[in-house]
Structure formats: structure tokens, C-alpha cells
């Protein structure tokens, strides 16, 4: 007899979602989370006494509403401090551009671009809908043709047909080029181009001219099929999402244990049997579901010696580079951004003046260096949620593109310089902000890797590139949430459909496991 029906490694949102659906299907489930709190990258941390911040992910823009509903997350404490915020692309001469749903404001956008934008978004919505049919199911397999896969393929195919010939051939063309070219051929405004291009590269180690960036743009845009027209802010920081999920699945009978780091996945022959914890404790289960990234799962937890070499080689080849860092500032007062009122500061602010600026920022990453002028995705969460800081004081949080995982000089010698560089970048739009800083924190890709346990610090647990998505995510032999080891499954962002707080990997995995039933 085993201790549990299923042990889930990692209590990130995908692990918890998977656990919850398995519990709903009557399984006895244990979630083992290495960190002290559940939620994984959906986390809140007091980085300076009295100042709290979402210390990894900061926005919600693609979480599946089905998951919010299925787990009654609202009644378990999830609430939004702000929903569907506008994006404001900052301009040094205060000619800011405000993007909200289909509408554009400011920055002298031409009427042609207004129309172009509507047309562009209409087209993207069609493509995102097409993705939806693939994202909300297990990915089809490349070779074997199961009817379920055929169904997904058919939906994709029908969807493609539904697109019409022009849209379809355009999609085939776009998906292979890059966001830089697409923006150039679509819009006249450089400010608009850059703002949208930033969405394509955030969380990736790619620049606007890199191939794959139309796919990553669509991956983010997919959020529109989940009811988002902009980013939303969770009250209490994203840790509240982790807490709500954890509470909800606990109510469903799942046991969630934190501070429990799994050191190995145990197996007999070719069946997973349990896990060993850092404490030395052994736990057994009839299935092990890992939400740790695939490289961690197979290289570290299972060990390459326990899988066939071709498979191990594919896992080892998974690209897990990151160029994304986080910066958190504790501020004694609300900073003054030139040309923005308080209502505007509640929105999502981005600094990416031109696509070439992003591309130049990206150049540094190619050589494992820090950008001179990084592109930034900024939130001042305390405006929508004063509970995060002492009264009258504020927090600024920013996603920073690009910082390498392992700069040649080492982070020790670069940390302060880079922090100041990022603050200096903000200072150009918010003069005097550096004087308000009473605490600061930089989380580099290697810090994020160490804290959240994801290889390379990669946002998606493995880059989201054409060779690592859909039926080849994370790699042949581990698609459809199954692995070469019987009873071992994947359910994290490293599997289809990838990262971002979405919950679909966890949900699809649970469905697949339940479907396989005792056949597994």
C-alpha cells in the first residue's frame, strides 16, 4: 500500500491546480513544496520590513476563468485590486501612449494606426482562438494518431479553415518571422510598435528581431481568450493566488506541505514509486506528478541514469535560458512620473521607447551581459492595494529585460551597479525617484532559479520556441504529460501549453491522468 494516490512535486499554481482536479476525481493527494509558502512564482514577499511585493510574477493576464470557478478561488480569498489595466508606454517628452483593449490614446497616433490597431487585434484574436483549442487540451502527438489527438488536430485544422485562406496564409507567414517585422509592416508609430514588441519578448531571452517572437506574442495574447483585455493585479500580491488555491485544494482533501524539498524520485524497474525529501523521509504513492521544470525533474530528481540516453539527451537539450530579472523598490512616497497623474500610475507602465532600444538591450544578453538601457514592465502595486506598504509609502516592482543568468563578471560585483542602472532608467521618467528609495532588491535569473527552483530562471520552465511548444513540449518522450517512467507525470509550465499564470498545464495534466486511470 502506498501513502498516497498521487504526490505532486511543487506547489506552484500548476501543481495545486493539478492536485485539486485529482482530488476532485477522488484521489488522495499530497503536494510537496520546497518553499515556505504555496504558489510557486505566484508569491508575495516582504522584501523590506513593512513593504510587500509580488516577488516573481506580478500581473495576472491569462489565468483560466474555469479554474477560478472550479476552485471557487474568490470565496477562498482571491480578489483583484485592479482588473484589466491599461498599458502606458512612457515617453521622455511626456508624449505617453495609453493602450487599453482596442483603444489607443495620446502619442499622436494617426487615425490609420488607430484603425491598424483594431484590425491587428481582430486578427490576433482569431489566432488566439485557434490556439485556445490546442491550449485547453493535451497536445496532440506527432506520430501516433489517437482519436483525441485527431480531434484536437481537427479543431486546429477546422479553426485554420475557419480563418479563411488569407488569414491562414498570413498566420503561417507571421509565425515564422519576428515581431519586429510584423510591427514595421503593421504600424507607423514607433512607440506603439515598441510597446507591443515588448509583450512579445517579456519572459524570453529573445529580442524583437528574433524568430519565435510572434508565437510568444500570441502566447501572451492568448489571455484575451480567458477574458482578460489587460493585466490585473491580485489584492495582497500574487501570493494571495497561491494561498487561495492552496486553501481551496486543502478543502478538497489535498494535503499541502511546505518546506518539503524533494531530492529524488524513487522507482522500481520502470515505475515511479515515491519520493525522498531533503529530510531523508521517504513517501510512496502510486503516481508522482512533477511541476518542477522538466530539466530539474529528469536531471536532478530522477537522474539521467534512470532514463534511456536519447531521451536524457533531449531533456538536456531543452533551452532554458532567461534574460528576465525583477527589481523591487521600497519608496518613502509616491514618485512623480512626468506627465502622469495618480490614476495613470495605477496602470501598467512600460519603458521601451523604440524597438531598436529593446533590440539593443537584448544585444547585451547574447554575450551574457546586462543591458545598458533595459526595457521595463513596471507596477506600482501600492496604489491599487495600499495594504502592501506602510501608509503613504509605496512599492515599485518591475520586470527587467535583459539581465543574464551568469554574467562573466559574476553578479556579486554587478548587482549594485545594475540596480542603480535600472533606477537611473526610471529616473529619466520619474525625476527624484532615487531619493525616495528606502529599500531595494534585484532578483537576477540565477536568484530566481535558486528561490523558485526553475532551471535557468526561465519564466516558462523551458523556452517557448517553435521547437519546444505543442506536440514537442517539453521534448519528445515527455509530451502529453507522460514520461518514459510509468507513474511519473509532468504538470508544470514546462509542459504544454507553457508558462505564465494560466493553470492549463496543471489542468490538462490532471485530465490526462484521470483519463488514463488505472491503465497508467
Amino acid at each position: 500500500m502506498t501513502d498516497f494516490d498521487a504526490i505532486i512535486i511543487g506547489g506552484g499554481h500548476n501543481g495545486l491546480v493539478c492536485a485539486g482536479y485529482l482530488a476532485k476525481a477522488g484521489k488522495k493527494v499530497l503536494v510537496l513544496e520546497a518553499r515556505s509558502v504555496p504558489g510557486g512564482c505566484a508569491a508575495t514577499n516582504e522584501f523590506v520590513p513593512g513593504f510587500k511585493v509580488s516577488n516573481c510574477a506580478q500581473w495576472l493576464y491569462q489565468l483560466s476563468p474555469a479554474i477560478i470557478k472550479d476552485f471557487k478561488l474568490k470565496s477562498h480569498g482571491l480578489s483583484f485590486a485592479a482588473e484589466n489595466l491599461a498599458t502606458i508606454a512612457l515617453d521622455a517628452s511626456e508624449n505617453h501612449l495609453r493602450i487599453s483593449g482596442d483603444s489607443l490614446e495620446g502619442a499622436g497616433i494617426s487615425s490609420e494606426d488607430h484603425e491598424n490597431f483594431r484590425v491587428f487585434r481582430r486578427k490576433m484574436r482569431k489566432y488566439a482562438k485557434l490556439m485556445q483549442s490546442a491550449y485547453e487540451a493535451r497536445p496532440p502527438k506527432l506520430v501516433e494518431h489517437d482519436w483525441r489527438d485527431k480531434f484536437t488536430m481537427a479543431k486546429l485544422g477546422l479553426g485554420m479553415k475557419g480563418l479563411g485562406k488569407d488569414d491562414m496564409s498570413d498566420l503561417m507567414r507571421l509565425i515564422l518571422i519576428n515581431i519586429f517585422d510584423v510591427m514595421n509592416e503593421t504600424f507607423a508609430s514607433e512607440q506603439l510598435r515598441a510597446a507591443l514588441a515588448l509583450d512579445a519578448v517579456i519572459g524570453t531571452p529573445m529580442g524583437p528581431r528574433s524568430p519565435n517572437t510572434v508565437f510568444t506574442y500570441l502566447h501572451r495574447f492568448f489571455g484575451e481568450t480567458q477574458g482578460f483585455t489587460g493585466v490585473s493585479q491580485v489584492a495582497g500580491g500574487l501570493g494571495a493566488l497561491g494561498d487561495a488555491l492552496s486553501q481551496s485544494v486543502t478543502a478538497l482533501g489535498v494535503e499541502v506541505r511546505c518546506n518539503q524539498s524533494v531530492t529524488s524520485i524513487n522507482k522500481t524497474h520502470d515505475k515511479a514509486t515515491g519520493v525522498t525529501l531533503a529530510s531523508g523521509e521517504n513517501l510512496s504513492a502510486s503516481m508522482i506528478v512533477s511541476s518542477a521544470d522538466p530539466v530539474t525533474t529528469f536531471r536532478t530528481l530522477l537522474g539521467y541514469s534512470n532514463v534511456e540516453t536519447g531521451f536524457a539527451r533531449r531533456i538536456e537539450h531543452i533551452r532554458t535560458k532567461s534574460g528576465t530579472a525583477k527589481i523591487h523598490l521600497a519608496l518613502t512616497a509616491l514618485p512623480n512620473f512626468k506627465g502622469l497623474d495618480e490614476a495613470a500610475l495605477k496602470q501598467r507602465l512600460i519603458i521601451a521607447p523604440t524597438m531598436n532600444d529593446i533590440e539593443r538591450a537584448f544585444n547585451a544578453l547574447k554575450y551574457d551581459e546586462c543591458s545598458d538601457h533595459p526595457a521595463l514592465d513596471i507596477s506600482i502595486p501600492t496604489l491599487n492595494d495600499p495594504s502592501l506598504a506602510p501608509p503613504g509609502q509605496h512599492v515599485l516592482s518591475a520586470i527587467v529585460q535583459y539581465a543574464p543568468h551568469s554574467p562573466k563578471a559574476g553578479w556579486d560585483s554587478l548587482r549594485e551597479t545594475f540596480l542603480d542602472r535600472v533606477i537611473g532608467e526610471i529616473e529619466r521618467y520619474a525625476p527624484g525617484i532615487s531619493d525616495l528609495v528606502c529599500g531595494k532588491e534585484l532578483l537576477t535569473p540565477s536568484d530566481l532559479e535558486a528561490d523558485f527552483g526553475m532551471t535557468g530562471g526561465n519564466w516558462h520552465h523551458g523556452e517557448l520556441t517553435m521547437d519546444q511548444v505543442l506536440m514537442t513540449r517539453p521534448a519528445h518522450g515527455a509530451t502529453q504529460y507522460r514520461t518514459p517512467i510509468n507513474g511519473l507525470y509532468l504538470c508544470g509550465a514546462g509542459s504544454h501549453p507553457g508558462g505564465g499564470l494560466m493553470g492549463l498545464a496543471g489542468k490538462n495534466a490532471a485530465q490526462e491522468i484521470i483519463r488514463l486511470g488505472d491503465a497508467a
Partner: protein
Amino acid sequence: MNTANRATMMLETPFHSRVKELCQINDWGNWMGFTTPNAFFDVELEYFAVRSTTGVFDLSPMNKYRITGPDAEAYLNKMVTRNVSKIGLNRVGYTVWCNDAGQVMDDGTIFRLGPNDFRLCSYQRATDWLLWCAMGFDVSISDETDHLAALAVQGPTSCTTLTQMGLHDLNTLKPFGMREYDFEGEKLMISRTGFTGDLGYEVWVSPERAEPLWDQLFEAGRDYLIKPFGSYALDIARIETGFIQAGVDFVPAEEMVRPGRTRSPFELGLDWLVDLEKPLFNGRKSLIAEKEKGSRYRFAILNIDGNKPADHSFILKGDQQIGTVTSAAWCPTAKSNIAFAQLEMPEGGVGQEYVAEIYYQRELHWTRVLAPCRVLDGPIFNPKRRRQTPAIPH
């Protein structure tokens, strides 16, 4: 180090100075970048040296890898299809290894030099794959190809010749056994192995001792009619005794370009090398599935009427083509016309009769022969002396 010859851009083996001298007809081939003789003076006579007296073959180009470290045995057990734990100390085992799809990448021999000290000889350059296989294991792998010179000394008088050279009591060495002797102030390693199916040995020394080894061996073997032989004679001998060759009888799996062209060990008649009881080895899952589903092809040794070697022939059943020949030779000792064929399942059962469609040319005139053939139950040449211990003296 092996040196490259500037004129030919080919590598030369440590025996090259001696081989060159004896290669009377100057018929050279390319073995993995090494210049090696196809024939020295006459293919048939070279072949008969192997079967009647002693033949010497320079196998220095063979890729040799040393695998050591606490996980060496476990590592090899994962890499190859057979159970390496069953290869005793100072013993040698023939094996194949597969990719995950259960398709044969290469074949070779494993020499167990210590509990966790092995030498692997392979046809293919294998460093890349060996290193990939090493992920997760505490092993170290080094390429010894350039650090070991080797001669195959094969034939009925080989034991006597080598004993004459000073390898005392060699006759007590069992097939697939190995042993060390002092030689010129160094160790010489000898194994009772070979690719001819005859009584025979392989002798391993440092490149510095290669020339003295050759000289002393030919001196000791003079009265026993020792002769060098090239790869053409070897080919006849190995076909006669049923040994397949990588790159000829199967496409090394990771070199395959066209899907479906590779073969599993089962399809090469090597079931006996596959230990499905081992919990994990590369290709296991696929091979289990193949066992359940059935193989696509069967390896068959065919005895063909007439004396026209059936190179590249189609094998016909009625007017239906059911397979192709991968290796063929007229085998002088067995006095048989032998071919290895890949036949589509379920064809190829022992005793089945087919027709080989043979084409041959005489003075620009092509002739087609439809030669009846029959599936043999095993290699046609398999003499007692190959296995007898003590080896028979001469």
C-alpha cells in the same frame, strides 16, 4: 600518435612500415581514416592462411575506449543490450548497442579489465554517444584508439606461433578469455577473440611496441607459414562464420537518413545478446514492444546453389521480392555459396527455400541467374578448434 601521410591524407597505423613492405599488390583501402590493405598478395591465399596456418590482420584502426569509475559496470549495462555483469574479470563479450528506438547503432566487444574497468571496441567512432550515455553516471571515458596497436592472429597454428614467440601456456587460454604477458619491458595483452570464426587471438600493445611485435611474430611464425591478410580475405572468413558487419549488414542507427532503414538486434539475429530482464538499457522499451508486435525483418544465412556470389541480390519467393542480400561470398573451406539476407517477416524460417536473383558480368556481358537457395540454421563454418581448450598444438 598515429601519423597522417601527407600524400594521401590518410592515417597510418603503428604497423604501417611493416604492412607496407608486405603489401605486394598495393591495394589499399580506407578504414575509418586509416590506410589499410584490402589485400597483400592474393585474397584467396590470404584467406587460406587464416584457415590452414596463421593469418595476421592489423586491427589498430578499431576504435577503443576505456571506461572506468565506480559506475562503469552500471553505465555499460545501460548502454549495451547484454548483461555486462555476466562478463567475468579478464573476459571479453560481444555486444551491440541501440538507440532509444531499439535500433542497432553499432556492435563491438567489451573487455573486462577490472571490476569497474572496461575497454570497449567499436566499429563506429563512439565518443559522442559514450559521453551522452555517461550523463548521470560516475564514470570516465577516454579514447584509447591511438594508444593501443592491435593485431589479430588467426588460424590453426596461431596458438603455436604465439607460444613460439614466448607467450607460454597460451594454449590454456579459453575462448573470450584474456591474459597479460611481459613483452619488451611492457605488458602485452592477448585475448582469444577474432572475427574469423577460427582458433585465433588478438594481441594488444602500445604503439611503441608495434614493430617489435610484428617482427617477432613473423619470425616465430615463419615455419608455420604465417601470412598477413587484408580486409577482403577477412570478409570471406567472417561471412563463412556468420559474423555481421556494421555499415554493411546494418546501417548504424544514428547515421540513418531514411526512416525505416535501421534494424533492431532481433532483426539481425542477435536475440541472444538482448537481456530484457535488465531493468533499463537503451532501446529496452522499444525492444519489448517489438517482441510483442513482431519484427519487420528476419536475418537469414542462405546457402545458394552455384558459385556466383549473390552480392546485392534480391531474394524472391515465386515472383515476389521478399528480401535483399547484405553480404555474400563464395566460402572456400565450407565450399558453399553463402549470403546474409534481410527477409521480410514472416519469411526466413530455417529450411525455407527461395530464389536469389544474381547478376554478374563477364567481359561487359551481364548475366542473370536465378539460383535456388535455402535458409541455414546457423553459420556454416564452425570448427571445433575454435573452442577447444587447451588449443590444439601443431
